[in-house]
């Protein structure tokens, strides 16, 4: 049975339910959010319909500009750390026997599915004075007494790298597992050591994959909203935290929506870039 064009209305039936659900519950909510971003905040209620650009103007003020800058910087740092750890790791993993790969993939998926709440709780325990790793250092004589390692920037960064690392490995996995093994064999035959072959052949061949992965992890890290709150100080809060805060605690939906629209634009631009990079790779 080959693919063919739908001939009658009846042929479109399978699209009805998915189409309706996605339009009603994704397109409309998304549009609602954009519309609300132009509304005026109503202190007594939720918001009043209007057309103002105050929300956007306020967002571009110095304070929120600073938060945006910090969010972007943090996301870049997380993406770079993750790819630097994950790329060689995933490469080596694809060279392991099948059952070893399967075991790792199950473990990675389990960590990936962990709620940000649990990751935050786990790391705040690990960084705490009473139940943290510094107790271990005391036990082996490296430190005099246990200390709290949070709230700090390092704690936020560690937590976010932890959250994004399984994601990074799983994004890199298909590209690396499909890598043409003859490439490497040729390099080895010509006398390159495994490490040299990796840096001179594998890494350049997957340059576009690396760029695409960096961008995807960047967008993923941009979405982190609980870890900066649990592991950091208010100055470590990201745009996602601020959006949640405005929407829920300050009851300022229009402003939250304006910030969210801004975040969408950044994410979309980056996802678009990923697709572009991916397309170039396929063309090669």
């Amino acid at each position, binding site marked *: 049975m080959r693919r063919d064009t739908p001939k009658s209305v009846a042929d479109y039936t399978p699209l009805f339910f998915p189409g309706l659900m996605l339009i009603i519950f994704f397109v409309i909510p998304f549009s609602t959010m954009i519309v609300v971003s132009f509304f005026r905040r109503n202190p007594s209620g939720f918001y009043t319909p209007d057309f103002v650009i105050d929300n956007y103007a306020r967002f571009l003020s110095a304070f929120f500009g600073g938060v945006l800058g910090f969010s972007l910087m943090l996301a870049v740092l997380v993406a770079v750390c993750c790819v630097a750890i994950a790329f060689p790791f995933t490469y080596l993993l694809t060279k392991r026997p099948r059952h070893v790969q399967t075991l790792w993939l199950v473990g990675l998926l389990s960590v990936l599915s962990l709620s940000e709440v649990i990751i935050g709780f786990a790391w705040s325990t690990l960084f705490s004075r009473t139940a943290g790793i510094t107790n271990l250092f005391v036990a082996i004589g490296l430190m005099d007494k246990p200390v709290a390692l949070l709230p700090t920037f390092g704690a936020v960064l560690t937590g976010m790298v932890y959250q994004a690392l399984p994601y990074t490995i799983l994004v890199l996995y298909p590209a690396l597992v*499909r890598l043409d093994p003859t490439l490497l064999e040729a390099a080895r035959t010509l006398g390159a050591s495994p490490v040299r072959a990796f840096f001179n052949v594998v890494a350049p061949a997957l340059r576009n994959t690396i760029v695409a992965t960096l961008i995807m992890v960047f967008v993923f890290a941009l979405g982190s909203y609980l870890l900066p709150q649990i592991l950091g100080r208010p100055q470590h809060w990201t745009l996602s935290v601020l959006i949640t805060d405005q929407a829920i605690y300050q009851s300022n939906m229009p402003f939250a929506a304006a910030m969210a629209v801004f975040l969408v634009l950044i994410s979309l631009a980056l996802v678009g870039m990923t697709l572009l990079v991916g397309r170039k790779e396929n063309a090669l």
Partner: protein
Amino acid sequence: MTATWLRRLYFTVVALFLAAPLIVVAGVSINSRQELTFPPVGFSLAWYAQIFTDPEWRLALIHSVTLAVCSAAIAVAIALPLAWFLWRRIAPWANIFQVLGLAPFILPPVITALGFLSFWATVGLFGQFFTAIISHAIFFVTLPLVTLSLGFASIDRSLVEAAATMGADDRKVLKTVVLPLILPYLVSGYAFAFVLSLNEYIVAYMTIGFTTETLPIKIFNALRYGYTPTMAAVSVFFVAVAALVFGAIARFGDIRRLLGAMSSDGS
């Protein structure tokens, strides 16, 4: 063999990094005292029992499981006909629905969550439990959509052709050939959506967080009032469920293929 030795060290460090918080949390969860101490003092499974016996934790557990079971089912119900249509028909514009199915998951979650919050508030249904079920279904529709698309792509079209030549119509081919072939992908798509829904926080919080508590919401709310070993027990419970589900997928299906490895034999 320094290379092998280095690789082992590297794998061990990554494994330790990924496992460290879980080891500490597991240690805390069997602590016999009502406070967070690590290494654990004494041994007790009381905190695990509390998930099921304490009315508040039990209620949160029931909410979470109900939410995950129903939303994953709806996500599959949306993804299956869509993936089937895209495989069966040539209708390029229909790909827009695929993009719509992928978007909620690719964008930062706070955006999808805020979209739902403004939508449900505008139509006046904010806070109802079913709104969270629908929101989660849309948020996680990406997962069954991706696994099912992989499943359809793996079907040998000549097999379907043969059935059609023998006189089977679309419905019969779907029932006797296509569905059995994609069943593993359907099950894993459901499982992915189920596990992630169980752990999801922000969408649930922005739709029902003020009226109903799920486990992640309950943990976060409890975090503000100080730590209890029950939270550690719940965390371990979550990891165990995830590992069990993905372990089962690996046992009965091919997880490497599901995650993008081209062939199922070797690499």
